[in-house]
């Protein structure tokens, strides 16, 4: 086929204007040729015989009259076994392989293949000759680490397909043709272990989308109990710098009860990705006992990498998440940070000279954010099993002020809001999720009645605390003072959690239910103190005892001892009526 070529007529930052003669497709990939290098770009606007394309690389050195090659395919990712444990940039270039080729620096115009073409996989056929299949039905399987990786009928195929040929079980590379199918019009389709899928189109080859109702346990108490997230749900973590967004994401990526975690480091510090990169292979996954890296995939387009690829990176991540969902797995996608992604949209919109919306973000920001989060969800697959994609995105609002377009657009579409506050992080109350401002629409791991006791205590305690700032301790009644101490106690022993402690760092759902039950019991207890100093001392001791208890292994001797001790302490101050 003859190549579809165009000619550069304008360069402005990473935006090219290209003149073309033959048809071009909106959002297709085009390569600008420069000294033998091919710089990848995506067509984003067409006017008359001119196309505008955003280049995913530095455009330095391009000139008017330069050649551009249109490919006719949309920006896609390659899906197949071997994605897990990889580290990709926003365009699915494997970074370790790139490093082998180019050394310390990211050389532009170098695009190694995403999957290893040499590696052999132990293939087991599932479909047999004569079977009738449709898109996303399983043709065969290969083991990938701890998972059974399904090789599926390409998602884009329509109608019923009849299996004509299959290979025997054996060891093959990803490019091996494992089956030949015949579609309704009689054409033969060859199925290999890989398929390409355009990143900006959701994969919809499933039976139906289900309601999100099952909690997804993260082992972070304040989240699971007060502001829970759900399997297949969406949540956001906005917060000013230094409030612990990234740490919270890292903790979740370690402890969340899911099969696969995809980390999209989008426009953030490279150093943070490096920590994950170097530490995860060493860390044990508590569920499987294997290295955490085996269930992790990192898409990494850090702040100094080209901006256009940053925009693509979240789509690359969510497409791969959907792919693993198609195998009946639960996938958690952590995007850090969606604000950087929105900023990439803003930069692009500015170059296109579009009429700006609030704070110069494009007017379509809201719908873009909404359609991204809507790619999360629980689905029933063709074979009746379910899979899910849960999406958690951090937001980095300018000045820590949540009244800005990205936070506000995100809040409209997510199911849980875990807002971090500067005041809490300054007071070293980690995780710094604000218990009064945050909310969640998903079911908690504890009962509604207990939860309401906790919530009420936090609200009332805050009110008393505010009042005390004005009238002092002297002017506060004993009852109010106890409410205040109780709320501080709940905060100290339950909301706050030591992320780096072996036991306290992750609290299971069972333990949360048990502990929260005990604590609400304390909150409900009517107490009597002669003076405020005595009340304060009592709660200091109780806090210390409960914090120690949090650090003990469940049902160990000292754990049981602690339960008794706390019970005893309570008896001494409670009022019997």
């Amino acid at each position, binding site marked *: 086929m003859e190549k579809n070529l165009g000619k550069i007529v304008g360069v402005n930052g990473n935006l090219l204007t290209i003149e073309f003669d033959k048809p071009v497709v909106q959002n297709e990939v085009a390569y600008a040729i420069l000294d033998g290098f091919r710089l990848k770009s995506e067509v984003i606007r067409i006017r008359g015989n001119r196309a505008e394309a955003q280049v995913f690389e*530095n455009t*330095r050195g*391009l000139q*008017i009259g330069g050649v551009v090659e249109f490919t006719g395919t949309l920006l896609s990712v390659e899906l197949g076994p071997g994605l897990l444990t990889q580290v990709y940039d926003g365009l699915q270039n494997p970074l370790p392989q790139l*490093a082998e080729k180019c050394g310390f620096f990211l050389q532009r115009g170098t695009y190694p293949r995403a999957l290893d073409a040499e590696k052999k996989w132990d293939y087991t056929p599932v479909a047999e000759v004569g079977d009738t299949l449709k898109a996303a039905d399983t043709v065969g399987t290969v083991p990938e680490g701890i998972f059974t990786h399904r090789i599926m009928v390409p998602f884009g195929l329509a109608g019923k397909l009849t299996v004509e040929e299959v290979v025997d079980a054996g060891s093959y590379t990803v490019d091996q043709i494992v089956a030949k199918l015949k579609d309704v019009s009689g054409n033969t389709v060859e199925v290999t272990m890989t398929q390409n899928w355009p990143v900006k189109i959701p994969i919809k080859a499933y039976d139906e989308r289900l309601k999100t109702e099952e909690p997804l346990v993260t082992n972070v108490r304040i989240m699971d109990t007060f502001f829970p997230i759900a399997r297949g749900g969406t949540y956001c973590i906005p917060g000013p710098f230094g409030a612990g967004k990234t740490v919270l994401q890292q903790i979740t990526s370690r402890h969340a009860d899911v099969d696969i975690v995809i980390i999209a480091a989008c426009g953030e510090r490279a150093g943070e990705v490096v920590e994950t990169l170097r530490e995860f292979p060493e860390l044990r996954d508590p569920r499987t006992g294997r290295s955490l890296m085996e269930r992790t995939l990192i898409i990494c387009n850090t702040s100094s990498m080209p901006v256009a690829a940053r925009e693509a990176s979240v789509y690359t991540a969510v497409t791969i998440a959907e792919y693993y969902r198609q195998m009946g797995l639960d996938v958690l996608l952590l995007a850090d940070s969606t604000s950087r992604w929105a900023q990439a949209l*803003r930069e692009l919109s*500015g170059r296109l000279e579009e009429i700006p919306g609030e704070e110069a973000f494009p007017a379509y920001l809201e719908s873009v954010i909404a359609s991204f989060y809507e790619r999360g969800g629980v689905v029933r697959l063709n074979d009746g099993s379910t899979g899910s994609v849960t999406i958690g995105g951090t937001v980095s609002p300018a*000045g820590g002020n949540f009244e800005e377009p990205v936070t506000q657009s995100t809040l409209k579409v997510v199911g849980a809001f875990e807002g971090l506050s500067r005041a809490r992080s300054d007071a070293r109350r980690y995780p710094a999720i604000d218990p009064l401002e945050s909310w969640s629409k998903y079911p908690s791991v504890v009962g509604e009645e207990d939860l309401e006791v906790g919530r009420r205590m936090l609200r009332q305690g805050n009110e008393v605390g505010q009042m005390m700032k004005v009238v002092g301790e002297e002017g506060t009644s004993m009852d109010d003072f106890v409410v205040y101490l109780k709320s501080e106690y709940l905060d100290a022993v339950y909301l706050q959690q030591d992320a780096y402690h072996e036991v306290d760092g992750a609290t299971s759902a069972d333990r949360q239910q048990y502990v929260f039950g005990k604590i609400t019991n304390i909150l409900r207890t009517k107490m009597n103190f002669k003076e405020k100093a005595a009340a304060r001392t009592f709660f200091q001791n109780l806090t210390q005892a409960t914090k120690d208890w949090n650090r003990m292994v469940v049902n160990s001797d000292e754990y049981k001892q602690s339960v008794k001790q706390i019970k005893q302490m309570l008896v001494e101050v409670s009022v019997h009526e």
Partner: protein
Amino acid sequence: MNKVYHRIEKIAGNVITIKADLVKYGELAVVSSGFGTSLANVIRLEHDNVSLQVFTGSRGIATDAKVRFLGNPMQTAFSESLLGRIFNGIGIPRDKGPAIKDNMTDIGGPSVNPAKRIIPRNMVRTGIPMIDVFNTLVESQKLPIFSVAGEPYNELLARIALQAEVDVIILGGMGLKHDDYLYFRDTLEEYGALSRSVMFVHTAADPTVECLMVPDVCLAVAEKFALKNKRALVLLTDMTNFADAMKEIAITMEQIPSNRGYPGDLYSQLASRYEKAVDFDGNGSITILAVTTMPGDDVTHPVPDNTGYITEGQFYLRNARIEPFGSLSRLKQLVNGTTREDHRQIMNTMIQLYANYKETLEKQSMGFRMSDWDSKLLKYGGRFENELMDLSVNIPLEQALDLCWTILADCFEPAEAGLPTKLIDRFWPSKG
């Protein structure tokens, strides 16, 4: 290729537009007219219209000025002979020495592959206790110094330049007052640190566009040194001027401003500079300290705000001291576990007690009676401020830790400090 163009179509701000062909994006050109010559670089191509930003500004450029394209982007020289020299923002000597043209390399090169980065592990000793003890600077870290106009941030930078245990210091000045420039030059010279330093200085009187080049030139040189197994420390002052220069150009180019007039890509622009900080595995490193003045002492101003999201912590300079509360080195945990066993504990205890001292001060100012404990805290706070926080203190880490113990022992009983018994037994100085 070196065709000369004579007709300038448009002059607006520092940007001129000419009609030319075969021009490369980002290419450098020489613009000469009656009032002098200047470099300019290509910032937009549109058919045969080429927009160039003129480094010395467009003042005095005639419509028939000569424009000659050089065929390469902005470059900087690199060799050992840069050491001890002072240049302006685009690498022209300021110190009457010869021009250097060795190993010209492009500035603003590609970023480091994250897969090739390593977890930082070496401390950079500065001799300043507020940094070494409380917020340790780590090799390959990027940290801003948040401050307001009038604070001695340049004195602090000069002090770090003199004392820091690194191989090469690269100082980038942006919008410096001429006096400050001379201060840096003289101080480094007087204390013999100039021989390991390279300075790229743009003063407030110089053309704005040159200001934009300073960080890139500094970092390109630093990168070359780092790849020659040198530990390079890049000191930049003041990044707010850099951001303002960017704002100026963006407005001239009729870009849509996003927040308080700053361009929408402020974050990416700052990040692409700060992210040059790196520790090359088996080779040298780049550490960046950058003064960022906060207009109106407002940390939510777009420049400090975006900076805070990029850097690994921040130092707050207030009342001529590095503030212990807001300041944070995110990487200190990576190194302060292995310096000396008492380091972390002393760090936390001293700060907690200092926080108590602050509360006592408040009580005192409200006229409450001072208890015994309050008097102890007052004594402690005074000594802490004079002997540790003062910027002129220059002692090695170990000595600073010993000094902490001495201050504690002079002010408190062992049990009052709240330190683990094990450490008290070893380190608490005996009185006498």
